[in-house]
């Protein structure tokens, strides 16, 4: 990472750190969602962008992570900081099972992708009938006073949630950077580019793919914990749905898969485009249902056509910043 990149990162951090002091609640909620997708995109990017394994079922880690921590809180009053360990453990285990099945038995490419979708759908339907945590009727956490900050139980103001997800997104960025610029990053990219050649150079393909899916899954699960306590309600139909998986991956695809800034930039662009357009239209008296999805689709189409590697690699070249 060169000087310009660090300067860019520092300015971004400064702006995001100051935001709650100048922004209203609406802007803050958009920014919170942007950071959430930057975080989840970063987690997905480790598996796909670095290691080249396309998962279209990352909602499963989001959902399982969310439900595990929320259920502990709902039934036993256990706080999210304790609950997140269960979430991470469960999701790491689920990722390991999917990985072991796929990578051991050479389920690769599109078949791996189908497996990830199948597991997510299976979980969605399973949780619909899991009445202990609400089933399809949903699980609701008690909403307490929003003006009192209780960081221990993750209850508090929008600004608190904003800073929590900002910290998570920053940590995910740091972890991704650390991984990418060391042995794991090199080995994952080698596997992504050519498995035969990677294996011939001494890389244990199975072990490194397993590491990628376990890290990616447990990171995503933390996003789920955040989601549960931010929204205070969970429905299997939403949190496990494939459209949630798609939302997670749009950011990195548009921003630039396999890059560090890509997931952040992509999430920011999507948040600006979708919410900006919705706002502008609403102000002029237009309400179009499904507009967000339409904009996502158009953005994806335009970027794939003009910049197949995403916006960031091109932008980085212009700014003379390392990718």
């Amino acid at each position, binding site marked *: 990472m060169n000087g310009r990149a660090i300067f860019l990162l520092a300015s971004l951090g400064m702006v995001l750190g100051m935001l709650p002091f100048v922004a209203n609640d609406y802007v803050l909620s958009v920014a919170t969602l942007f950071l959430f997708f930057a975080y989840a995109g970063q987690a997905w990017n480790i598996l796909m962008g670095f290691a080249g394994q396309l998962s279209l079922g990352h909602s499963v880690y989001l959902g399982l992570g969310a439900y595990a921590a929320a259920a502990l809180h709902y039934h036993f009053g256990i706080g999210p900081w304790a609950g997140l360990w269960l979430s991470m453990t469960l999701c790491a285990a689920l990722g390991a099972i999917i990985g072991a099945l796929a990578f051991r038995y050479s389920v690769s490419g599109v078949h791996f992708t189908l497996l990830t979708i199948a597991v997510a759908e299976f979980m969605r339907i399973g949780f619909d009938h899991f009445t202990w945590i609400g089933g399809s009727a949903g699980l609701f956490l008690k909403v307490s006073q929003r003006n009192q900050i209780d960081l221990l139980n993750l209850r508090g103001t929008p600004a608190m949630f904003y800073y929590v997800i900002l910290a998570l997104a920053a940590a995910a960025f740091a972890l991704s950077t650390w991984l990418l610029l060391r042995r794991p990053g*090199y080995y994952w*990219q080698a596997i992504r*580019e050519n498995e035969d*050649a*990677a*294996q011939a*150079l001494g*890389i244990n393909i199975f072990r490194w793919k397993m590491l990628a899916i376990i890290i990616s899954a447990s990171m995503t699960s933390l996003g789920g914990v955040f989601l549960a306590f931010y929204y205070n309600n969970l429905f299997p139909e939403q949190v496990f749905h494939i459209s949630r998986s798609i939302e997670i991956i749009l950011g990195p695809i548009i921003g630039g898969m396999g890059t560090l800034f890509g997931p952040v930039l992509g999430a920011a662009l999507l948040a600006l485009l979708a919410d900006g357009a919705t706002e502008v239209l609403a102000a002029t008296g237009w309400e179009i249902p499904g507009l967000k999805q339409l904009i996502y689709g158009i953005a994806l189409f335009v970027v794939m056509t003009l910049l197949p590697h995403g916006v960031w690699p091109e932008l980085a070249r212009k700014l003379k910043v390392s990718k």
Partner: protein
Amino acid sequence: MTPLLEARQVSKAFRGLRAVSNVSLSVETNTISALIGPNGAGKTTLFNLISGAAALDDGKILFRGNRIDGLRPDQLCELGIARTFQIVKPFSGLTVLDNVIVGALKGHPRLSDARRQADAILEHLGLGAKRDLPASVLTLPDRKRLEVARAIATQPKLLLLDEALAGLRPIECEPMIEFLREINRRDGVTILLIEHVMRAVMTLAQAVVVLHQGEVIASGAPEQIVRERAVLECYLGTGVEI
């Protein structure tokens, strides 16, 4: 002394076609040996069997006296066997330097050490000026060099080269031959190469094995091989001057 590499009655068939049939050969430590023969003789298949890329039907392969058949390519690399691919397999999205670093990381856990070693190898192979280019833009001769650079970076004891010189012009062959001879002498890397460039085989190899239709039809010193009637008939042709 046990040979570094030994194949004993190795066979491999593809749907009934005997690609490699009852092949035995041995490669002595610190030598350069060549595997030659017409197209379809089973040379690359034999390489795939040795390097773990394909499973053999019958026979044994030993490295320093230990069975290695059944091991995966990454395990063989750990033991000190590296290979290049005839159809080059660069990591296209990575830079030339990063390609070699991937190999160098095996012996150098620290990235800075791996980078230093990779840089030195690239310099040596004449790829130094292209280190920051993506591997996808390299010409075929450069890709061939990159294959060798990456394999060497794993610091192998035995290097299997599958037509590393094919496609190189004579003037480009010379530095590569020199490089191979040097890593053999200086670093003690044993080399087994598949090659059609007979001039390279004659100058480099101390021992030659000739395959034809999956079987060994001759083996021995290069000067001796080029006089064998069977070799002349099936591969070199009669009346060649080497």
